């Protein structure tokens, strides 16, 4: 390989390597975002589970105790809820 060819090869190699490094960094970042998204999805499912159970408890109808035999008022209307 002549000196001239070495210089030309060096230029194209540098460009290729820099762009490859850039794409690699972006790919790593996207992987991190994917992991974060999975964590958030898990967190969202956990947050949603009690919210789904709450109306089920409210639909049980009259309950004994503090409220006697009256209907349990919907969540948020009792004193102290807000």
């Amino acid at each position, binding site marked *: 390989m002549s000196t001239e*060819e070495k210089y030309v090869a060096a*230029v194209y190699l540098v460009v290729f390597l820099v762009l490859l490094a850039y794409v690699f960094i972006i790919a790593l970042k996207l992987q991190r975002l994917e992991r974060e998204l999975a964590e958030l999805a898990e967190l969202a499912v956990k947050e949603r589970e009690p919210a789904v159970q709450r109306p089920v408890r409210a639909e049980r109808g009259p309950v004994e105790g503090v409220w006697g035999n009256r209907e349990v008022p919907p969540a948020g209307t009792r004193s102290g809820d807000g």
Partner: protein
Amino acid sequence: MGAALALIFFYAPLDEDGLNQKIFYIHVPIAITAYACFGWGGWKALRHLWKRDERADLESYVAIHLGVIFGVLTLVTGSIWARYRWGHWWVWSEDQLVLFLVLFLFYCAYFMLRYSLAPGPQRENLSAVYALFGVVLIPVSVLAIRLSERFIHPVAFDRGGPNMAGSQFFTFCVAVAAMLALAAMLYNLELAGKRLDQRLRELREALQ
């Protein structure tokens, strides 16, 4: 990009510069792309200040970031070419080189400014104003080759048009288009990642 490389190595004829002339087909399109990225960053900065476009700040940042990467490539490829042709990695007396370096360092300082401020409207506004100032340097850097008295740097284009054969000019145009397309693709990729990151942060804050 593949078509551009095929044209560069199998179609474009060699001139008196020899094989070293193949560097021109990648060095100049990279420099043009760097200018385009800085210009696009300036345009988005103007949109941010003028129209109060919320997305423009991030778009300006990504364009300038990409411009700096292409700026590094311009300096490195130019230095390799200069080492072979002139026998020096860098010539301080050459206006075009020094002005491009000034432009490059100016935009490097953009990141120092941006990350020295807390996220918010103040950071966005100051970054936008700084990016707009940099745009002024772009035509100076491009025209420096005309202002230079020594003319060491080869002149590919003058008032009479391109100083090259038709096939060389065609290859050059394809290389410029390929490099701009590559930059546009990388710009969209990085922007999508940044926006996703921003939305995930908002979602995390909303959930916690």
